């Protein structure tokens, strides 16, 4: 059963539509509601819940959705990631060894994406105060500063 059928949406469904479908489906197949049911049914619902989550996580990520659609045309109903599961919700990789450093770094990246170089640089400097020896941070700071000059 492919993800679209599972969620009861069209292949072209928009993300908001998918979200609504996902929430409805998860409500219907929620393991908590089956605690008193037969073990076989309980396990089945648990499996469905997991599959729903898998479907939703792939379809809400535009890159993964595209790859999935391609695989679907070849008859693959489940998503197979190319490489290791690195990258967050939208493929961002978490850099940094300390929680504070990571936070500041990802805030810097977010500001950079939003075009606020000044803010990005400020966040990156903050990140460096937590991880003075992080070469990746340092390189990124230099890159941002140069971008700001130009």
């Amino acid at each position: 059963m492919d993800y679209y059928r599972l969620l009861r949406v069209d292949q072209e469904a928009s993300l908001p539509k998918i979200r609504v479908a996902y929430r409805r489906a998860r409500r219907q197949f929620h393991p908590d509601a089956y605690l008193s049911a037969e073990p076989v049914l309980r396990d089945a619902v648990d499996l469905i819940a997991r599959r729903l989550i898998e479907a939703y996580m792939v379809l809400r990520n535009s890159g993964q959705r595209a790859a999935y659609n391609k695989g679907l045309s070849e008859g693959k109903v489940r998503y197979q990631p190319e490489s290791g599961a690195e990258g967050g919700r939208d493929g961002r990789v978490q850099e940094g060894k300390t929680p504070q450093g990571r936070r500041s770094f990802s805030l810097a990246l977010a500001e950079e994406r939003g075009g606020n170089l000044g803010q990005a640089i400020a966040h990156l400097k903050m990140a460096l105060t937590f991880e003075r020896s992080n070469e990746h941070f340092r390189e990124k700071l230099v890159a941002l500063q140069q971008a700001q000059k130009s």
Partner: protein
Amino acid sequence: MSREVTIGIDLGTSNSCVASVLEDRPRVLANAYGEPTTASVVAFGQDGSIAVGNQAKARVILDPTHTVSSAKRLIGRYYFSEEVKKAKAVHSYEIVSGDSNSVRIQIREETFSLPEISAFVLKEMKSIAEANLNVALTRAVITVPAFFNDNQRQATKDAGRIAGLEVLRILNEPTAAALAYGYGRDLRQKVAVYDLGGGTFDVSVLEIGEEVFEVLATCGDTYLGGDDFDDRLIDVLAELVQKQHGINVRTDPFALEKLKAAAEQAKIELSSRDPAQIKIPGLARIDDEPIGIEYELTREQFSQLTRDLIFRTFKVCDEALQEAGLTVRDLDGVILVGGPTRLPSIRGAVKEYFQREPEVDINPDEVVALGAAIHANSLVTTADQSCLLDVTPLSLRLGIAGGMTETIIHRNSPIPIDHTRIFTTAQDDQAAVSVRIYQGESREADGNTALGEFQFSGYQPGPRGQVQIEVQFAISTEGIVKVSARDPKTGAAHSATVSMSSGLSEQEIQEILAQARARDVVSPDRRASAPQPEPSPAEVDDTSEYLKLPPIDAEAPADAAEASAPPANSICGQMPEDLALPEGAETRTADNREDGPAPEFDATVDIGDLCDEFLSEAETELAGSDEAILGGAEPDDVLLDRELKK
């Protein structure tokens, strides 16, 4: 039909609260003094008596080395962690290391694990509830900070077991609060829960709608709590003592406790008065002369002292919103949880950050227990109930070469979730493979929390690179990690052993349970007049008549081999009899501490058919017009992997 009574327990760092749903309304159950919360303090008397609660807290000043508070800051942690080091500097009771880098509390001749300490508190909350309701209670939902890792969750669950409770669910505190907030109100909102407890800080962003409470993201800081705010003030006062009297108050446990009590008092006073006066006349004695200090604390000053702590909380808020893909403008409300959020400086900062007033009508001390009670009730009744969709707060990582790790499951992934990977052997005829599991966000192994090393054996050895072992990493609805392995061709499960884990083994828990029955907890925080129904072992164990769940086998023999039941919820099915574990091996498997033997899951059953069955029986939202998409129209469309049938 009589409804089973269940309770929700907010097991807090400083204070705990218990609630239950009565006549469809969640209510907090007060202790013998009419107080809704009870201090999470355990006092061990010279005579062997054990007191729990507010009376115990009063004993801190008299006997600080034998009075344990803030156990939640230590539960599920490794002895070498920063938090434990900090606790050793701040608390007067003795913190020592146990096996496998675990933490133990030394009280005179005895050592206690943290689950045992917390179990005393849970037992007390259970007793308070029983006194209120006049019925024996066994089933509870216990809350934990959303950012608790697997070790901490398991340890909390162990504490529940030791306290004689069947823990229906370990529930995240912010989620519980959101549930209490939205209960019965039919809301359609996006909310943020700002939960600053005594020892931890969590932010969760949720979307509530159509009785679905969905956590979009959760972030936290388990090293940050109200206690840290106290510590700042204690530092100032300690310095004052040093300056005025030339003594280091931290070397005198009695003086230190007096200072702490005064600091806490002043902080609370600041909420209604500015400035607050601190006066400790008999702080200590020098040359047999009493010495004291006086200090005037203003709100502004306290704000300055704790500015960086408050700042840290908003960095966490930034991160949570970012993970959720929202800005503060997208939110419809902010919910404050935790006593420390009463501080004017915090309320003000929250209002400024979220650009709105936090929700009123929420009691920050009680809302979590109320939510836990609501959830406990929904788990045992079949009435239409709210649906909680939570996420895992930390990424699950796998140790790879060079002291590095790679992500298996991302943080803020909805749960339950699993990920399967095929491993092979590195050497010819290798008899076992091991995987190291971590939780955290760092690429480097030591930037994360180690959950343990899992060793799998019992497969057919062969030339290197040709043996296939399928390992499944699963995170349950409670955020608890299960790792299991099996042969990808036959589906037969491999035996697993866990090492390097700091938690209690099944054997240790059985021993504690056996001892616990002999120990008596004396606490006046109960209504002395009400009859005390002491649940007999049969009541605790035989819950099968209620919900057809397999009974907790509390009387199971401590036999090592027996204790390692097969993984309860893996798709692997029963473990073959001949895969016995080697003699003397540490036999706590990844999840053999679950309830009793596993129900068999027939991997060949067609999910499509099951759903047919279910859909035709149950009331569904699919009126005739909608095609029952999971119906048997195309029997070849099975959800179950073909791989399983290979």
